[in-house]
């Protein structure tokens, strides 16, 4: 049997080690030359519950998750019940643990292996053989990864893996030779990482030096990635007492010249909004990552949604310039975060990165990021020939005032959250107020000049345009591709930046299509409404998803 691509789901309870199986398997596929796309589903609990780790792999880049399965690995009975319906006719089931003999047609991992205490490595051994990936590749990986995490159990893990692999060799009859699927010359060239890791790397590439956070799923792995590399990259990362402290710390650090960021999710961001407004008024650069999950309130803590666009757009009282990036791929997570730091510095204010649980936890194989030509942010000026008295809020044509850092020269830097004079002192002079509002508003030009144009795929004059933003990009692209293959005239327009909008970049395209469909992970079509508000162009057709799961191409195609 040969495969263009291959879809596997591993399901079980939290605590059974399914993420370990999933990550090792993904890594093995990447090392053998596959492109992969991982979708993680989990529940808000540490033990038990139903969790999934799905890998879609192929010689071509998978764009989105897919429901139909080639292999189902069930670590518990619930996984079989829930996902058997998605298995292809000739699909393979590997069952373990409490999944008993009634798992009919399945390859059952022997009980003694399951009870050995190394259930997950044993399951991996059976799986590795059945999908045709060499034992040696896995053994190396187990040494590299598990060896680092649990050196004391390395030998037992290796033994459990080998025993299971050998058992499968002699005791199973069916085999899917997946390794051929991915036999491309890419082996050894890709790196595997998820959206949050890419955001953290993008931040480091921009010279980020400070991050404060209060843990909240699904944003936490951004600061965790920074912490893991803090010593190597000279970063200060602090777990604050709450999100209010986190944003204020980041602003304090940025005021003193550290390129700074915070990462949170909707609920934590709600607490930060006062600080966002402070960054706007004091003109302090700061990058804010908002990893969306379904709300309102604490909603579905571990699922995905794209419903915080309007919130982030309006967060913070008063009026001030801002930019919102919404990366649709791992590469975009990296590059847009890099750009966000530069834009925050250039516009001296807040810049947002809007991501979500799906993208945050979705591992993919990508080319190692090219760092050539990337420069770190240089915050403010340190010593200067600026004449005394220095004026932090000097009224300039661009709206951007010269930024000095306190303590680096004899000049005093005065910043204020109240309306202030050019030298930073609070004022109630209403003519100064008007002049300062105008000055701050001129910074929109700086932000607008840098707007990332939307990405377009498809024929020049399509009948239908599928519109996506953020993490729905992949599913939208796959749906578009399949429609085009079926002979339909369809184009994909994707926005990696959702604010501000530069009409001339897309309005012509929208107006010339017969039908425009907005594909969004929320219940009201927030981006479609934003486009109408800004341009008057009314997108009536919408495919919306708000059940907590990411889009798939099938989901879109069934509803078009």
């Amino acid at each position, binding site marked *: 049997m040969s495969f263009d691509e291959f879809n596997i789901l591993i399901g079980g309870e939290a605590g059974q080690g399914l993420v370990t199986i999933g990550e090792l398997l993904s890594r093995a596929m990447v090392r053998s030359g596959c492109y992969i796309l991982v979708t993680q589903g989990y529940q808000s609990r540490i033990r038990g519950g139903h969790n999934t780790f799905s890998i879609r792999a192929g010689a071509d880049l998978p764009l989105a998750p897919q429901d139909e399965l080639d292999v189902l690995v069930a670590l518990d009975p619930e996984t079989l019940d829930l996902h058997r319906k998605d298995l292809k006719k000739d699909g393979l089931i590997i069952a373990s643990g409490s999944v008993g003999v009634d798992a009919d047609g399945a390859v059952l991992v022997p009980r003694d292996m399951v009870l050995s205490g190394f259930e997950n490595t044993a399951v991996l051994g059976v799986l590795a053989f059945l999908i045709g990936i060499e034992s040696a590749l896995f053994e190396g990986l187990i040494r590299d990864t598990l060896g680092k995490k649990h050196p004391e159990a390395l030998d037992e893990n290796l033994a459990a893996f080998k025993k299971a692999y050998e058992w499968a060799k002699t005791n199973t009859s069916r085999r899917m030779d997946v390794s051929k699927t991915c036999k491309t010359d890419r082996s*050894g060239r*890709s*790196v*595997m*990482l998820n959206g949050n*890791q890419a955001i953290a*790397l993008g931040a*480091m*590439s921009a010279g980020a*030096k*400070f991050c404060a956070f209060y843990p909240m799923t699904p944003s936490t792995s951004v600061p965790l990635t920074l912490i893991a*590399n*803090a010593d*190597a*990259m*000279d*970063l*200060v990362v*602090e777990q*604050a*007492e*709450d999100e*209010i*402290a*986190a944003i*204020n*710390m*980041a*602003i*304090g*650090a*940025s*005021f*003193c*010249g*550290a390129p*700074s960021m915070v990462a949170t999710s909707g609920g934590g961001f709600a607490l930060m909004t*006062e*600080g966002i407004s*402070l960054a706007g008024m*004091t003109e302090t650069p700061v990058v804010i990552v908002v990893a969306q999950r379904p709300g309102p309130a604490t909603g579905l803590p571990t699922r995905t949604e794209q419903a915080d666009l309007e919130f982030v757009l309006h967060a913070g009282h008063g009026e001030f310039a801002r930019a919102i990036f919404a990366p649709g791929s791992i590469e975009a997570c990296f590059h847009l975060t890099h750009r966000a730091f530069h834009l925050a510095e250039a516009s001296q204010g807040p810049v947002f990165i809007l991501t979500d649980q799906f993208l945050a936890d979705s591992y993919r194989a990508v080319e*190692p*990021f090219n*760092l050539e030509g*990337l420069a*770190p942010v240089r915050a*403010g000026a*340190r010593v200067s020939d600026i004449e005394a008295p220095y004026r932090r809020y000097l009224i300039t044509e661009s709206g951007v005032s010269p930024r000095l*850092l*306190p*303590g680096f020269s*004899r*000049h*005093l*830097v*005065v*910043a*204020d*959250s109240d309306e202030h004079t050019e030298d930073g002192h*609070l004022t109630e002079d209403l003519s100064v107020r008007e002049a300062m509002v105008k000055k701050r508003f001129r910074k929109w030009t700086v932000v607008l000049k840098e707007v990332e144009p939307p990405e377009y795929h498809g024929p020049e004059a399509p009948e239908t345009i599928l519109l996506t933003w953020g993490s729905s990009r992949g599913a939208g692209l796959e749906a578009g591709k399949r429609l085009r293959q079926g002979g339909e005239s369809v184009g994909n327009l994707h926005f990696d930046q959702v604010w501000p909008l530069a009409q001339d970049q897309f309005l012509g395209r929208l107006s010339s299509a017969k039908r425009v469909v907005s594909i969004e992970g929320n219940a009201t079509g927030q981006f479609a409404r934003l486009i109408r508000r800004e341009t008057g162009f009314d997108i009536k057709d919408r495919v919306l998803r708000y059940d907590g799961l990411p889009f798939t191409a099938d989901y879109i195609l069934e509803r078009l």
Partner: protein
Amino acid sequence: MVDIKDFGEYETAWCPGCGNFGILDALKKALVACGLGPHEVLIVSGIGQAAKIPHYLNVNVFNGLHGRAVPVATGAKLAHPGLTVIAESGDGCMYGEGGNHFISAIRRNIDITMIVHNNQVYGLTKGQASPTSDEGFVTKAQPHGVYSSPFNPLAVAVALDAGFVARGYAGMKEHLTDLIVRAIRHRGFSLVDILQPCVSFNKVNTYAWYKERCRELPIGYDPTDRELAFRTALLFGGRIPLGVIYEKTGRPVFEDRFTALKNGPLAVQKTDFDALRAIIADLA
């Protein structure tokens, strides 16, 4: 040589006779006594009458949000450990809206000095009760008197084993100056809670009231004795002790723990692209 004139002379928006004037004076004198040039000092404040104080001084200033002086000061110190960072604001700002930050700053033992103008009332919003108002204190917002018991910042600080805990009084300027000097010199977190008469909204805790009660700690008082410090922190009534109530040295200072800060301020640190390349390669 730094001179008091270097710190400027400004018109203020405070009521004539307000205790804030004494505090401003003492602070200037303390900065001079510490030999700090204006550019070496950053004062971070919140919102309130007290929080306007940095505007009346030549120093670096970040006048932020109500209750949020301490986290901004914390971030600033972590970015630039060489700066002398003072967080200064009113009792409502620091203990009410900012209560969680107060506790956390003590626990971190970050080297900032927290100066609180404690007038037992909200000044800027015209006379509501503050966290330190006495039980029964009558205001327009609390017409039947305050129901809650007052927050005791000194006792909380001693309970959390803060490095430096002191109480001063705006009417005893020299004594106050000395306290601020010692607080700035203390490496690690320090608190100076300053009793500050509000002539407009607090008609109970007046200059006369404080004069009758405020007494310097006796000679021979041992500020390193934590139990004694705790008992002393509980005294507030007929006699109000002033001075360094608790001092503990030797606890690690927060910013010293970060490897990144061993090479000076974050703003001048390079981005090591080779290290970043290695981190990315490790993801294969």
